[in-house]
């Protein structure tokens, strides 16, 4: 999404942490691939994070335009 490709160690570090915090959960394996999906808690947290980022970006843009 951001155009950055995570290394396998970084990616699985993030997966382990998100699963520990019950923000994602595993789905059945598909041809040796292990998909994950957001849990209800994960959706709530993601929505809140994105709203914060959205507000932060809007405030930043307003400041820039006011200069």
């Amino acid at each position: 999404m951001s155009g950055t490709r995570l290394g396998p160690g970084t990616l699985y570090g993030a997966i382990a942490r998100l699963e520990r915090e019950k923000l994602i959960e595993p789905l059945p394996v598909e041809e040796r691939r292990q998909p994950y999906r957001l849990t209800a808690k994960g959706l709530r947290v993601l929505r809140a994070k994105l709203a914060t980022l959205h507000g932060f970006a809007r405030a930043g843009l307003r400041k820039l335009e006011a200069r």
Partner: protein
Amino acid sequence: MNARLVRQLVGLYPQEWRTRYGEEFYSFLETHPSNLRTVLNVIGGAMHERVLSLGRFKMDRRQNSLALMLYASLGALAAGINFYWTVDDTPLAAAMRNYLALFTSWNLVRAGSLLAFAAFATVGIPVFLTIVRTAFAAQRWDVVCRLAVPPCAALVTLAWMVAAARLSGGHWVPTPWDVTGDWTAPHDWPPLATRWALSSVTFVLMMAGTIVSAISVRQAIRRSDLSKRRRLWFAAPSMLLAGSIAVMAIGVLSWGWFVQQYAASDFHVRDGGLFSSTNFASWMASCIVFLAATLMAAKGARSALSLKTE
């Protein structure tokens, strides 16, 4: 990425992590191109997980009880050795021959140490054999290596003491209890600065050996399945251990009280230890460690008794 490299990289992660993610991570890595950046990234991830895993995976009550008994035993052993060397070959040992109360307190410590050893052996030997047997059966060499740490640490310390004693003329062994005090050192002992330096190394080896042994055996316990061991194996010896260490603590405390009454001047002379402390300070250190060991053993016994609720 080739299968051998993938296997080696996955092997860097903690065992608990591998149980959960090993298979899917293996498949994921196989589809990845093999380059230095990826390898370094996986090594970094493995190190990170190892650091995180240190405090994450909790022990069950059996393991917790066993670890507490181990700490209590090591603490009691260290305090007992210090107490023995505080008294041995000093005027305090002579005072014990003249005062029954002092001698009785000393014997209380000796009786407590025998009971504690019996309790530790009762639970320790069968559990040790179980851990070794299952570790060999499952080829868990990490567990075997951890169990080998305490004897190795003891051997290293002993080898150092023998080597240092030989190098310094063979008339003096570098223990932390025979350095300087309110006495004149025998003429065939090495100079004071040498005694300080060599004894400091022994002290560091003893402390490091005790700490590393406690950590290693705890990790071996945590990695072993003790769930088939019955509650009785833990509950009865853990209570005996807690009781006997408490007896030793009472013995040491009462010994200090009586020696203050009967041989106060000998109690307050500098005792020859590494830190130039008095017999009183050494006794105080033993008391503190004995009381801490009693608390840990009591906590271990409580944990073992609560097994019935599991």
